[in-house]
């Protein structure tokens, strides 16, 4: 059987990779990819602890997280595409001013 600590460590590393992608990429799309990656790592942790505890709450919460991630990607990408089409803002370095 797979031991638990390796899954926890794997989830930790994947979450750190997602945060690093979110920080180091400049375009909005790749930042969203990093957020997806982090959410996925947390999903792994939820499923694992659900299997360890023997109840189903973690797996149900994973379904909620999947839904929220899908909605987040849809809204975020539409906002990013609109920013690019209307204001030619592509990376987050272009967003230096708060004026609209």
């Amino acid at each position, binding site marked *: 059987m797979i031991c638990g600590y390796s899954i926890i460590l794997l989830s930790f590393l994947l979450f750190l990779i997602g945060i690093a992608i979110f920080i180091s990429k400049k375009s909005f799309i790749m930042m969203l990819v990093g957020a*997806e990656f982090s959410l996925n790592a947390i999903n792994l942790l939820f499923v694992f602890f659900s299997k360890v505890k023997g109840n189903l709450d973690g797996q149900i919460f994973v379904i909620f997280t999947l839904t929220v991630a899908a909605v987040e990607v849809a*809204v975020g990408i539409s906002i990013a595409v609109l920013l690019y089409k209307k204001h030619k803002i592509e990376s987050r370095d272009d967003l230096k001013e708060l004026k609209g």
Partner: protein
Amino acid sequence: MLETIVFLVLALIITGGGFYILFSKEPVYSVFSLVVSLLAMAGIFALIGAPFLAALQIIIYAGAGVVMIVMAVMFYKNERNSLLKLKKGWFGAILLVVFLLNLLAIDLSFGKMKLSGGQTSTKELSLEFFKNYIYPFELISILILVGVVGVLILAKRKEEE
């Protein structure tokens, strides 16, 4: 032992995909690397006994979400930017090997926290879902509706102006 080997291979694929996203400059390659990572994560879900969530992972994340991201990447002009510059991939490879050896060592030495055996069936999951979580289910449906309406409003306003 076979499960450990499969788990290590899947962990290698996931972390390799993550490092490729981190160090790559091509957005499209990064997104397809994300697909590989998500599929391997679905494999881990199936391995630790949650096959329904593995199917959901493949359908929603690797199917719908990544298709949306690829469509959005096609709107952008192809600018290759990443803050992390890595001339050679050796650093990432060494980090990966060290991490996997670490995983293997922990796996062999501790092994206290055992998974409860057996697969979670879809029937079990749906019974729990509709018995105890019916109000969060409705709320999450409303969240999807709000997301769809929001995206439609954003897309419509672009056409009017």
